[in-house]
């Protein structure tokens, strides 16, 4: 297994040394609605980027636009100074792993993996050598002669990955590749994809709706909603400093409460007065939304609550509690709670985020 960057190969679009891929105002319109609006993104060579968002947010559209499977309505895609969006998919030199794998059912595993090399008219010896190498990389040597239909979902997935990476593409695009696998296999494949990325140094754009997957795998996240970028940042930035309430909601801030600001960092509503950290400009009298994760709602001195629903989750329980003013809060705790218990909760001011309500959010 080679370390570092893929070797430059003459004739492949992806082989030549390049520094960055740029998406400039990439827009895709379906009818009168923008499936993807003004996506600006610079991808450094070797980066692992996750496109994250709920279904219908435009992340798959973005991937298909990048791959050349969907024409852009506006904008451009560049690799350094080469414009790519005018090239058809087969000349971009990107590899793609499809959600349903899209393996050629009439070709063996070997045939599938060798397909791209044959399209490049590589010498037969080189095709055989690189095909074997890629099959070894995904640990399918014993299955090389089988048809895709004879493989399990995880194995098919690995064939799809081998088929995409064997060409050493400048960019690997993955469209929710783990969504058809069961929970255990998904964790395993997640590690495997990350391992492949590290060992081959392949630049990757990975589409997912699973925030945990995106956080654990990527170097940078692009959070999308309604076709628009909400936030671009490292997993830590997006996790701890969500740019708006939508990102917060997507990142596990399960408690989102509408309130009114009485000072820059103090809010009131429904009989509660809370101190938090403002994200953006908040002035007294503004309508705001405050967000806090269940794990940052602690049992302790503070707001009296009544325990409603309790879910057992192994080490912890997740509980839904109500304040006297009727506010519903989710919390997680190691202590045993029972429905109907009286308790008091404290909200960590550093972890309580205050978002101004922006009209376009509605």
């Amino acid at each position, binding site marked *: 297994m080679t370390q570092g960057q893929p070797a430059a190969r003459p004739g492949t679009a992806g082989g030549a040394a390049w520094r960055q891929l740029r998406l400039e105002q990439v827009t895709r319109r379906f009818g009168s609605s923008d499936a993807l609006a003004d996506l600006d993104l610079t991808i450094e060579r070797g980066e692992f980027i996750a496109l994250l968002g709920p279904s219908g947010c435009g992340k798959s559209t973005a991937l298909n636009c990048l791959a050349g499977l969907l024409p852009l309505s506006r904008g451009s895609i560049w690799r350094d100074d080469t414009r790519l969006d005018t090239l058809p998919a*087969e000349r971009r030199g990107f590899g793609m792993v499809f959600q349903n794998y899209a393996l050629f059912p009439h070709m063996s595993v070997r045939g599938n993996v060798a397909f*791209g090399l044959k399209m490049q008219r590589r010498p037969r010896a080189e095709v055989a050598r690189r095909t074997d190498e890629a099959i070894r990389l995904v640990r399918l040597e014993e299955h090389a002669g089988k048809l895709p239909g004879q493989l399990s979902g995880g194995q098919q997935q690995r064939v799809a990955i081998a088929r995409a990476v064997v060409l050493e593409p400048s960019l690997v695009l993955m469209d929710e590749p783990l969504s058809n696998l069961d929970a255990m296999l998904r964790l395993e494949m997640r590690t495997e994809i990350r391992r492949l990325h590290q060992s081959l140094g392949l630049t990757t754009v990975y589409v997912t709706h699973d925030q945990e997957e995106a956080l654990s795998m990527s170097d940078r996240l692009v959070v999308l909603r309604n076709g628009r970028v909400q936030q671009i940042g490292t997993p830590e930035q997006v996790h701890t400093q969500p740019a708006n309430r939508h990102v917060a909601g997507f990142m596990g801030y399960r408690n989102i409460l509408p309130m009114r600001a009485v000072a820059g960092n103090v809010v009131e509503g429904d009989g509660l007065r809370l101190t938090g950290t403002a994200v953006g400009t908040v002035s007294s009298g503004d309508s705001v939304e405050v967000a806090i994760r269940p794990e940052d709602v602690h049992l302790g001195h503070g707001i009296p609550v009544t325990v409603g629903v309790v879910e057992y989750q192994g080490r912890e329980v997740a509980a839904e509690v109500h304040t006297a003013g009727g506010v519903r809060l989710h919390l997680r705790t190691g202590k045993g709670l029972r429905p109907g218990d009286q308790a008091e909760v404290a909200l960590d001011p550093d972890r309580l985020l205050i978002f101004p309500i922006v009209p376009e959010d509605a």
Partner: protein
Amino acid sequence: MVALRHRLADRGIDRQLLLLVPATVFVAALFIYPFCYGLGLSLQPAQGGPLGAYREFFADAYQRDTIMTTLRIALPAALLNVLASVPIAYRMRGRFRGKRLLTTVLVVPITLGTVLTAEGLLNFLGPAGWVNRALTGIGFIDSPVTLVHNYWGVFLSLVITGFPFAFLLVLSYLSGIDPSLEKAGATLGAGWAQRFFRITLPLLAPGLATTFCLTFVLAFSVFPSAILVGDPSGTTRVISIAAYEAAYVRYDYAGGSAAALIMGLVELIVIAVVLGLRSLLYTGTTSGGKG
């Protein structure tokens, strides 16, 4: 106590299949019985023992040659129908505006029936038809070309009536091929021709073989157009005409039945050959993985 239904199911008996009995009886009464009756008739000629009618058919070149005559019309017509359907269906496999209208226009000839088609062909392609008048008018030809009352008339008629069947079948086979396979091919560097010949065509080929068999059977039993737009005593004297003449002109029922059975046998041979070749192809799933 296990329900009777489950105990029967364990032995592979599904009582709901009993609902198929009326249909089975219907098929037996309307197909198997006449077939056996015809077979019996063909084996009881007025003279020459049980196989006399068959021997007579093959001894007489005028009868025997109808097999080749029919094959010469039916095989190319079926082949053209299948081959012409492929590019058209391939272009139409996606979604686009006006697809339903275009499909309707392509399929309408099915509803016309052979007699109407033949009448149209006579008017359209006849010596004083539009085509010849247009061609002579622009000076492309000096005298009208003969396109009806010969081989080409029948051939065209079979294409017009057979194409819609072939097209509909090929379109449904093509729609069954996962579109993401060609997309995957594109991202792996395959141009459209490579995508078609290396991915789509191999997956479509078994369907094409089946389509060919069905359109061939339709074309092989050609009768009305062979008479109406063909040359029924010469180049388009097809086997069904031979059977008809034997049975209803000469009142030789044994000869007619023998010709009909020979016709069926030739069809079966062609189908067996095509399906034999088909079994050499990949015939598994046409989807690219888990959906």
